[in-house]
């Protein structure tokens, strides 16, 4: 090296660092860390006084129960069930009240249009298309969200969510991924896009990508109303009315568990094939239990989450309702455009135990999962007779009239659980991993899984002659 060459400050620093041997670095670092710890201990001894340690035990005992090998999982399952049960039973009444109110307005609007001698198509586009879809989204979605979010936030505020992560950590290790993935999944229950942003807490790029790609298997709040409604009509409806909500709840729980199971399987598959690697370690600290702040919980879950999700759903639902109405009411020869598309999708739909209209609703529902059901209702109604949708019962009648069986319901729920993420989520994935390739993968992989799952179930049921 040229001795006269002037080193840059950076090079000076590097050379100073390199003068010290690697072995010394390690020793110095260890000495420094232990010295800091010793000083921290010394200081805290001087300033801290402990009176009794009795109350500490209370936290520990609770932790032993909540994270025990034997009681941890059952408690998790029970709490999850409880939250869903409260949501299912609690949502019914406000839901029908809201529906009565909003569809009452629809009747007034219709009357107004007739009085003004407005053309039929304008009434159709604005009232039957836009307003009706909007009213549907609000009356079906708002009550479950307003109940589910505060319950979930309460568990979060109490400090229970990290315990879930703790319980699930081992399973995720076995699947070759990171324990923190269970936390990102918890966020996904609220919104998959939020869950994907939460994946930033995972340091290893490989594990982060796995968590991003599989977050979709946790049903988000856009899909919960769909799952809850269908489960209440078709699964709850099969038993005596006393057990309606319990059965519906249990079924939604099983679906959620199935989603978690799929997450683990797919994560395992990815970590063994496309994204090979060894899971990195991490220490999860269990934070102390805290007294929840009711006011803040309500504010956060109602304003931050419920209103946010609802606004988004409404913003997407109104134009979607409009488009669907147009598609359903513009006729080529004697068939609507919607029927043409549905007819085209019909063979595939039948193969996987659904129909063309359902598939089309899922495709048109790409902007937001919240509107899949409204679109489906719209298209069924435009096809046949108009129907007052004032309750889940009426919706059930409509679906049965269009050929739904319990198998259709099961397939729709499974498809909703497993299919491609919504546009917002896909957009977030694109932004988070910066790769179009992985974004496409994130859309195609779950869709293929959804199709094959429904296919296998339908064909098995038919083969066994169960339906």
């Amino acid at each position: 090296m040229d001795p006269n060459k002037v080193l840059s400050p950076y090079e000076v620093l590097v050379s100073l660092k390199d003068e010290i041997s690697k072995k010394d670095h390690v020793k110095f670092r260890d000495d420094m860390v232990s010295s800091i710890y010793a000083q921290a201990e010394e200081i805290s001894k001087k300033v801290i006084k402990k009176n009794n340690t009795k109350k500490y035990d209370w936290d520990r005992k609770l932790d032993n129960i909540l994270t025990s090998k034997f009681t941890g999982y059952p408690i998790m399952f029970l709490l999850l069930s409880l939250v869903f049960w409260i949501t299912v039973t609690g949502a019914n009444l406000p839901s029908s009240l809201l529906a009565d109110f909003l569809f009452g307005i629809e009747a007034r609007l219709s009357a107004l249009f007739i009085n003004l001698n407005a053309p039929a198509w304008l009434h159709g586009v604005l009232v039957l298309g836009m307003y009706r879809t909007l009213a549907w989204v609000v009356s079906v979605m708002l009550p479950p969200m307003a109940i589910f979010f505060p319950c979930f936030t309460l568990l979060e505020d109490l400090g229970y969510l990290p315990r879930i992560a703790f319980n699930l950590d081992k399973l995720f290790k076995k699947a070759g991924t990171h324990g923190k993935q269970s936390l990102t999944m918890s966020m996904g229950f609220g919104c998959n896009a939020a869950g994907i942003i939460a994946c930033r807490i995972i340091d290893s790029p490989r594990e982060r990508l796995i968590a991003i790609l599989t977050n979709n298997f946790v049903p988000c709040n856009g899909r919960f109303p769909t799952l809850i409604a269908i489960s209440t009509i078709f699964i709850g409806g099969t038993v005596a009315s006393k057990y309606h909500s319990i059965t519906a709840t249990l079924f939604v729980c099983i679906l959620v568990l199935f989603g978690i199971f799929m997450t683990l399987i797919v994560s395992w598959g990815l970590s063994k094939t496309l994204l090979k690697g060894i899971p990195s370690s991490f220490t999860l600290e269990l934070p102390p239990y805290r007294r929840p702040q009711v006011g803040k919980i309500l504010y956060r879950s109602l304003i931050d989450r419920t209103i946010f999700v609802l606004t988004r759903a409404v913003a997407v639902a109104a134009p979607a309702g409009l488009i669907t109405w147009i598609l359903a009411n513009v006729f080529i020869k004697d068939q609507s455009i919607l029927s043409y598309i549905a007819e085209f999708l019909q063979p595939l739909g039948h193969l996987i135990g659904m129909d063309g209209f359902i598939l089309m609703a899922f495709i048109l529902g790409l902007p937001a999962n919240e509107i899949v059901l409204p679109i489906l209702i719209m298209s069924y109604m435009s096809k046949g007779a108009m129907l007052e949708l004032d309750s889940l019962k009426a919706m059930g009648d409509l679906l049965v009239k269009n050929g739904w069986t319990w198998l259709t319901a099961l397939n729709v729920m499974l498809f909703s659980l497993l299919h491609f993420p919504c546009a917002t989520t896909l957009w977030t994935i694109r932004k988070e991993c910066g790769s179009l390739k992985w974004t496409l993968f994130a859309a195609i992989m779950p869709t293929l899984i959804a199709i094959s799952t429904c296919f296998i179930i339908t064909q098995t049921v038919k083969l066994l002659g169960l339906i």
Partner: protein
Amino acid sequence: MGLTCQSCGKALLNEQLNIKVGGNEKFIVALAGNPNVGKSTVFNALTGLKQHTGNWPGKTVTNARGSYTYKNRKFTLVDLPGTYSLLANSVEEQVARDFICFGKPNATIVVTDATCLERNLNLVLQVMELTDNIILCVNLMDEAKRKGISVNIQALQEILGVPVVGTTARNGKGLNQLMDKVYNIALGLEKTSPKKPVYNEAIEKEVEHLIPKLKNILDDKLDPRWVALKLLEGDQTILDSINQFLYKNTHKEVVCFYGS
């Protein structure tokens, strides 16, 4: 533009770090602390910005920002990711360290949990090595009391040589005093005399040997003692950060992190 204060030195650095948005009235305050000490609660209580507070480690990854006004001065509070140390073992630790180091906040609040102060003090001592403008906020005083733990704030303040404030952020207790201390430190009305950690003889000897060599190249922008310690540790990440922020003035990555 000539060679004025505007085109060189600190002004440029601040501009590149994208922090001083308003006039000179604005002060930058960094908020550091271990995960789960109620850091976000302090942040929300001070700024009134309703940002989501999660209660598990690593939740706050990108830092939130908010501002408050106290005695007619505007303070911008930067919520750093929760970390147990500044040893740059993870992205979060590096982000927190780089901000305190190169973002040149006018004051740094380190929030700690009164119920497990010992563990939290590690971070406090490490931040004290890095900057003098530090205020220690001992939060969750109510919970400590409930558990029968009492913290002698006055004694702690004397031992550390920096302002210490006991708070219960969830009900706003002690926050006025905290803002008062931040005001005093940021405006230079109160000087701290932090008792920095002392190491064993071997380390101190090496540090002494390194400091003169570092003084020239660091140009008063960083504490030579701290850089010497990092060199002894063999921490390459800090060298890269120094190169990036002090010499190259390429701040893209940090602007990404701190730019809103």
